[in-house]
């Protein structure tokens, strides 16, 4: 009956990562979900024969394997796009057949994010919307790249809104 969610996102880069992780765990528990946070494991965990970066990778993969679903923070991170590690984890979990829930409190479309955080857009000679480097900007209306939107249930709202959606989907299935 218990349903575990892996909490992917750039929260791990914050100085107060443990406080953020604990608040997120509390929200999960309040909705009857079992949280698995990347902050659950530190460098002291896992195969100590591995280099530190490889150990973190292995630990995160192990936690995703244990999860029933992945809840991913797709807020803009150091630019218009989500955290690269989070994007990888979403793809990995999708490949492993796990449902993906992606949340962002930023309701802008992907194109609007590029314009705001990368630079002005223009219409190219071939009619495509393009960024300052002349590269096409996708216009599907989702908040991020279609490869993240398409496999996911996207929640435009808070972390709690997203967790509530997971709980509602479980309740609807029961």
């Amino acid at each position, binding site marked *: *009956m*218990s349903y575990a969610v892996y909490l992917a996102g750039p929260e791990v880069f914050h100085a107060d990562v443990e406080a953020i992780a604990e*608040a*997120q765990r*509390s*929200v999960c*528990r*309040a*909705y*009857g979900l079992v949280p698995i946070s990347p902050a659950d494991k530190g460098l002291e965990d896992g195969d100590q024969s591995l280099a530190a970066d490889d150990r973190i990778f292995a630990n995160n993969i192990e936690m995703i394997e244990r999860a029933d679903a992945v809840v991913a923070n797709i807020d803009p991170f150091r630019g218009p796009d989500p955290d690269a590690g989070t994007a990888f984890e979403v793809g990995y979990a999708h490949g492993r057949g796990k449902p993906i829930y992606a949340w962002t*409190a930023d309701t802008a479309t992907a194109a609007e994010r590029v314009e705001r955080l990368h630079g002005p857009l223009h219409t190219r000679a071939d009619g495509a919307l393009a960024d300052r480097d002349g590269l096409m900007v996708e216009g599907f209306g989702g908040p991020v790249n279609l490869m993240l939107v398409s496999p996911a249930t996207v929640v435009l709202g*808070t*972390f*709690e*809104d997203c967790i*509530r959606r997971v*709980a*509602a989907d*479980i*309740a609807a299935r*029961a």
Partner: protein
Amino acid sequence: MRDGGSIAALHAVYRSGAASAESVIGERLAAITADRTIRAVVDLDVEGALASARALDTALDAGEPLGPLHGLPVTVKASFAVAGATVSVGIPDTAVRAEVDAPAVARLRAAGAVILGSSNVPPMLDGFHSDSPLGGRTVNPRDPSRTPGGSSGGAGAAIAAGFSDGDIGSDLGGSIRVPAAFCGVVGHRPSQFAVSKRGHLPWPLDALVEPPLSAAGPMARTVADVQQLFEVLLRVDPEATGIAPVTLAELRGLRVGVWRDEPGAECDPEVDAVLDCFVAALADAGCVLVPLSGTVLGRPQSADLFDRLVAVELAFTSDGGASIGQVWADWEAQRGVRAEWAATVADVDIVIAPAVPVVAPLHDEVQADAELRRRITRWSAMTNLAAVPCTVLPVGLDPVHGMPVAVQVIAPFGRDRDALVMARALQDAGLAPALAPGSVLLS
């Protein structure tokens, strides 16, 4: 058992000298003064509270031992007499300045609690909202478009918002348990006469006879704090009910009566979803689940009996339209119901039931709809007819609105400590998450 709750944390702060009672109380008073939204506290006593806090700081500096509630910021339901403060049932005509503390309030004060002010109630304490001519409309801290419940709704909201760490409510048809459930805090409705109800409106403040159906009891954010408040509030005069020591030890192997099925007591689907999850977690924790349904408390004649007893309770200055013979017959009938309930639960250790079958409604819904009011009171009223102790605690947030859902932990008469210790075990084991102060949505 974990040393949880805000009282333990606060006392650690006071003992270490990291903060004084005066500074803690000052912060709470400032937060209440700055608030324009929740409006849980109707009569703030800034000078009195700060003076009490300074006296406690002086006593601590002089090496005196801490009282069990030393420096705990509390509010008191507006209908309880607090010496020097306005006591009312939400209507200007009923407001009087109390000269002495109600006995229960005096016990809080003697234990070191600092009374910040009074918490809001509905007019005449009648309603599962807290919108009064005297105090205005109190809102639910988790969602201001929703009611905190009532009649101890200012209490529930003040605790959920982090304004106060405890309150004393009173409960005839659910007035402790409904706001506790709606606000996601913990409340305990004690065994009859375990806590004094003297000095409580709308009954005459100086009356010596106490109303026999309703009960006064503590509310707080965690079960640990409610346990401590209950031990302080327990009366010691010759009319005290004997409260038995704890008999329950651990969740594993505990026989838990799961009471969810009675006519007219159906829960909304989003409430059932949370309760299903909670009951499954009980089984995972090793509890032996024993389904209970169709009990004496659910029968239509029991509901009618309860309604007549409520009418008697409220008819303290009139004949209430019932003959003395009828009243005696109803008291006798209630004893019969209590005995039958006791027999029904004789082979379980504790009973779990819904607290309220809906989550906190929108402000306008709760006052407009008589059928909704009947549903809200249903589970509380059934347990009140049995006169048994119940602890209400949140077990999760509903998947549709994100509002708290609570259960009642019900023990046999006089076994309040078993209800509380079971509730505490549920919180300690993580089966029932205590919601954070402020109760705001996490962004």
